């Protein structure tokens, strides 16, 4: 499907402004494929027409849907596994030891998507932190209204719960509703989901009531930002963490530009970041 250079540049600038996401020409294919369901849903004939409609109302539902479609990624339970192994064998024991029993542990899933990451963290805590249901609180933030609504509902399809989730955890912590599975109330009570934009100066206002954070998951997000944005995002996150807190990025992502603030900790040949 054709898209004029002018309209591509407009959509790209709109997405950068609205979400901090960089859509270069090499990501044009991604933009097109993510917009296809919207074109059908809103009965829009072309990408150019989509751009024009967004331009005419940048705060309207279509503009929201465009941001949603570009920022929502399919997530898996226990994605990549090593962050959860690190929680269980390194991070939780260290925090429990230093804080003592009974103190609150705050965790932030900073691009929570449909909630699988937060739930995976909660499940890991339930298995490795004494009284986790009372002392561990997890904040999930995302930019996508659709993803937040999904996470708040806490109802997952049969397909979703079979990717990454051990069956023994499924039968213990989820209730079956037809062919879907709902997070049990005990686990749900550990989780809160809020809308927040990582590139906005308002970020701290949203997350501060839930912090300061002992652990932050910021996985597979930085790649979408410009180098300057990455630095600003990491700085905002650091400002809401406790000293000695852990930042867990994607395997290939680096706490860029502000390395002096972070100690690199290697776990199973992967890098984790500890705030100095």
């Amino acid at each position, binding site marked *: 499907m054709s898209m004029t250079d002018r309209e591509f540049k407009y959509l790209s600038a709109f997405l950068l402004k609205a979400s901090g996401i960089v859509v270069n020409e090499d990501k044009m294919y991604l933009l097109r494929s993510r917009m296809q369901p919207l074109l059908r849903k809103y009965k829009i004939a072309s990408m150019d027409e989509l751009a024009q409609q967004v331009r005419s109302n940048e705060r309207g539902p279509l503009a929201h849907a465009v941001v949603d479609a570009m920022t929502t990624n399919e997530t*898996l339970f226990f994605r990549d*596994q090593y962050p959860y192994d690190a929680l269980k064998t390194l991070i939780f024991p260290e925090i429990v030891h230093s804080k003592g029993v009974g103190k609150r542990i705050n965790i932030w899933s900073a691009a929570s998507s449909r909630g699988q990451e937060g739930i995976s963290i909660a499940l890991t805590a339930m298995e490795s932190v004494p009284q986790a249901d009372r002392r561990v609180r997890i904040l999930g933030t995302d930019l996508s209204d659709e993803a937040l609504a999904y996470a708040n509902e806490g109802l997952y399809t049969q397909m979703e719960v*079979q990717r*990454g989730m*051990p*069956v023994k955890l*499924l*039968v213990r912590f989820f209730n079956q509703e037809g062919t879907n599975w709902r997070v049990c109330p005990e686990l749900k009570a550990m989780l809160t989901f809020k809308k927040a934009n990582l590139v906005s100066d308002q970020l701290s206002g949203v997350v501060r009531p839930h912090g300061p954070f002992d652990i932050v998951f910021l996985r597979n997000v930085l790649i979408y930002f410009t180098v300057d944005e990455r630095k600003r995002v990491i700085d905002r996150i650091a400002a809401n963490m406790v000293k000695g807190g852990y930042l867990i990025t994607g395997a290939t992502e680096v706490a860029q530009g502000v390395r002096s603030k972070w100690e690199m900790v290697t776990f199973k040949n992967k890098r984790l970041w500890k705030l100095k």
Partner: protein
Amino acid sequence: MKALVVDDAKVVRVTLGRIMKQIGYEVLEAADGAQALEQMEANPDTAVVMLDWNMPVMNGYDFLVELRGRPEHGSDPKVIMVTTETGMGQMLKALAAGADEYIMKPFDKDMVVSKMEILGLEVAEG
């Protein structure tokens, strides 16, 4: 590494067998629990059994109970149920009988790989 695919539907044995071959397994087949027991006797080094529940002659659950009651064969394969029995009660029953993982049909390759990795079983690229 050997994988035993147990299902009375040939189409499932072929589809699942193809996935198991792609991830590096030598695939054995059985169309019911009794055939599966024979395969296990002949191949005690089988690493994983992909097991349907509802089959003629001997169903998957009865096979599982029988298999776990025969440690003398020296065979202790991982067992992944692959079934349309998707009720919580059935899942708990299979786990109590010694199943290690559970796939609710329909399945795809990602799901199979995910369950294999959860159990620490080898998965070859492919």
